[in-house]
């Protein structure tokens, strides 16, 4: 092609292309989900971030799933791939029987061998969700559809763990993509190989992901043949896109956006309590915070209700005891700590803490609200004579807090499923001081003993009794000041029907069961 011809054709193409907004192309019924951050990996064995859950939830099936009611898990489980499961005769291993007929997106059937492959791959990689499979030794294939999860210890919560989004069953055929012993990590980080209703067909990283219906799925989509997961970071942008119908659901709604979103025609904001606890954490091993009177004084000085009202617009629940509403063992009879600065000053004086004593508050700016919470705490503690020095940390520098080099910090705990275990074990068992999540460095041998017993006890009533007993001891020790449990917020266009959303496991959608009112694409 001569230079002039090339220039002419390029010019013609550009002129043609520049004629206004591109026309929309007819497309199959599509559900568009917006979220604030892109997936980092689609490999279920790697991820622990809820921002990765959407494609994993859509493209894979798990053995079990949570029974839901009004956006909350009831505590019950039902089979997804499994049609039956029970505790084995040894009292700790679990037997599972698969329902026949579930197929991966290449048409091959989901078998017990695929279950073994998936979980043993997870243990071999040892990252992400493997941390929740600590008691699992191996998976034994009994026949085509039956397998045994051989456990080293009793783990009554194990079936709950198997219902979490990343506990996906992967097609063993992915091993043909393995390179240098990576167990197909690189390939699975950007592809899916599951038996869910969809499979990922395109990913423009940082922008959007496209999933098409899995032609072999046991439960094909009722309406949406395609799901697009888009990244939208700015509130004004996602609000506009919701209003125009360019996205149907937005999952990263901030509390300050609720009113503005609710005013958008055709959009509703769904709200449910979640077990995400935000807490002010004193270092229980550093003076003067090693004195329970000082910790109690801080609890009386801080006003969680005021902070929740002013900073998250009241989209939060106050916590009686240490277990948030919805978590079994939550005890509304345990009174809230009263906001009482006079009592706080008296306790500080009793403990010999001089007025003007300086304490450092080390925290990570995980969101715009972090600074506001820190400033509110600083101001409220100043009212009782404590000077708080704010020390902002990089997210990667939380090791400093884990190693106990702090006075006060702000942290959060989360229960992934309806059980006291995730919060009680990690936040309050002294075994998790240091490298674990017991940031308060709280240790009470009586509490440890109760928690360790509860963790192994198969009888649910007895477990809850043990956790209840531990909770009362913890409340008396006041190792932390629980501020509130945040509510989950989800913006949804009103023409979307059939959405069943688990606010405890954000990012997981039942897109295959959803429809658009009047059947419009």
């Amino acid at each position, binding site marked *: 092609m001569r230079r002039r011809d090339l220039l002419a054709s390029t010019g013609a*193409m*550009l002129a043609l*292309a*520049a*004629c*206004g*907004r*591109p*026309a*929309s*192309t007819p*497309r199959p019924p599509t559900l*568009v989900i917006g979220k604030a*951050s892109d997936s*980092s*990996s689609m*490999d279920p064995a790697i991820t*622990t971030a809820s921002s990765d859950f959407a494609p994993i939830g859509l493209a894979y099936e798990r053995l079990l799933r949570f029974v839901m009611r009004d956006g909350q898990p009831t505590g019950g489980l039902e089979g997804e791939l499994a049609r039956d499961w029970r505790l084995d005769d040894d009292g700790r291993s679990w037997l599972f029987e698969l329902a026949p007929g579930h197929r991966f997106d290449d048409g091959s059937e989901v078998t017990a061998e695929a279950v073994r492959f998936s979980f043993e791959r997870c243990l071999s990689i*040892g*990252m992400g*969700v*493997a*941390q929740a499979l*600590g008691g699992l030794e191996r998976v034994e294939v009994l026949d085509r559809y039956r397998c045994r999860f051989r456990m080293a210890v009793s783990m009554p919560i194990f079936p709950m763990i198997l219902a979490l989004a990343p506990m996906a069953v992967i097609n063993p055929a992915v091993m043909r993509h393995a390179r240098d012993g*990576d167990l197909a*990590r*690189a390939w699975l*980080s*950007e592809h899916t190989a599951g038996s869910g209703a969809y499979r990922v067909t*395109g990913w*423009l*990283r*940082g*922008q*959007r992901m*496209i999933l098409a219906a899995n032609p072999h799925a046991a439960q094909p989509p009722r309406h949406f043949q395609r799901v*697009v997961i*888009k*990244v939208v*970071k*700015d509130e*004004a*942008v996602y609000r*506009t*896109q919701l*209003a125009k119908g360019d996205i149907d659901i937005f999952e990263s709604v901030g509390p300050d956006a609720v009113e503005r979103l609710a005013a958008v025609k055709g959009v509703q904001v769904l709200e449910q309590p979640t077990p995400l606890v935000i807490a002010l954490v004193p270092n229980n091993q550093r003076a003067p915070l090693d004195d329970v009177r000082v910790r109690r004084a801080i609890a009386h000085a801080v006003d969680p209700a005021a902070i929740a009202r002013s900073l998250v617009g009241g989209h939060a629940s106050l916590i009686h005891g240490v277990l948030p509403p919805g978590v079994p063992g939550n005890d509304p009879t345990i009174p809230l700590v009263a906001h009482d600065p006079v009592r706080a000053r008296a306790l500080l004086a009793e403990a010999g803490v001089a007025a003007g004593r300086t304490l450092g508050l080390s925290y990570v700016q995980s969101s715009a609200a972090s600074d506001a919470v820190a400033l509110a705490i600083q101001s409220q503690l100043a009212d009782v004579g404590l000077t708080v020095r704010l020390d902002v940390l*990089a*997210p*990667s*520098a*939380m*090791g*400093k807090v*884990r190693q106990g080099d702090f006075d006060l910090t702000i942290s959060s705990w989360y229960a992934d499923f309806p059980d006291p275990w*995730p919060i009680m074990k*990690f936040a309050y068992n002294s075994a998790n001081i*240091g*490298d*674990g*999540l017991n940031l308060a460095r709280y240790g009470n041998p009586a509490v440890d003993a109760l928690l360790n017993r509860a963790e192994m006890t198969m009888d649910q009533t007895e477990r809850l009794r043990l956790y209840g007993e531990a909770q009362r001891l913890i409340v008396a020790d006041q190792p932390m000041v629980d501020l509130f449990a945040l509510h989950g917020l989800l913006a949804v266009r009103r023409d979307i029907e059939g959405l069943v959303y688990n606010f405890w496991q954000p990012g997981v959608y039942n897109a295959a069961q959803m429809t658009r009112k009047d059947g419009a694409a």
Partner: protein
Amino acid sequence: MSAAAVLRRLAGLVMVVFGVTIITFLISHVIPGDPAQMLAGPRASAEAVARIRTELGLDQPVLVQYGRYLAALLHGDFGVSIVTGRPVAQDLLQVFPATLELIVAALAMAVVVGVLLGTLAAVYRGGAIDWAARLLASVSVSMPAFWLALILLLLFYGVLDWLPGDGRLGVAFDPPPTVTGFFVIDALLAGDAALLRDVLAHLALPATTLAIATVGGVIRIVRAAMIGVLNEDYIRTAIASGLRWRTVVFNHALRNALIPLVTVLGLEAAALLFGSVVVETVFVWPGAGSYVLGAIFALDFPVIMGFTVIASLVYVLINTGVDLLYRVLNPQIGEVG
């Protein structure tokens, strides 16, 4: 430029990039934080974290880690992302062209508009065009890019519905076959007019935002330089000798006035390489800024290193290009550096 000078430049370039790798590697490895802990998750046991640390080689002395990194880098291997397990080079090949495409489009718009307005403002100094150009320059340099981005977005996407609001591509299209990584060029090469239209439409708002943020500096530099040049004796001589006004302005004056602009554009391009992240965020433009920001939060060392090496390479190449352009614009200028 002589062959020896070119070789000297290239040797300098290699040394700069080498120095950058040392500094970045040392800084990123001595700051507090543990990528193994972040990767294992908050509930992982100490043993699990230690095992991951060993697997990643993070338990080795920093110098050993650096030696291994450099050896791999010499073979074009940027390593594997700690977080995603994907080869970093693969990711960089996606995100850098996205950012460069945005920057090139923005600079092209800023140069065309800025040079024209700056020249006219100088020629008609004190007139309406001069006034308008200076107003635009003031608005450009004083308006925050994120605010401008939101305003343009709400107007052209939200209200008028003329242009799409986010990303490089609509959901109805697949990316063009990768040749350059620049979607505009690749769509042209693919000969797909509908795709090209979609790509241009997606490029329009973010590129215009960056162009408006840049054009103020261009106008000011060109105007000031042109005013200086137009007062030179040789320009008066050219006019007195009967040359056409347009020829004097555009062939003689502008050519010399562009020399300071080239310097500024070199700096602007480098600044945009790191500074476009705000605009990338608003328009969900999957570029290098957003990519490395996530990596910094996750202490993903290979990604941070890969980005820094490529960015410093681009930076040095831009500066070398600026030096070469000096000589093209004014052959009397001696070799720089």
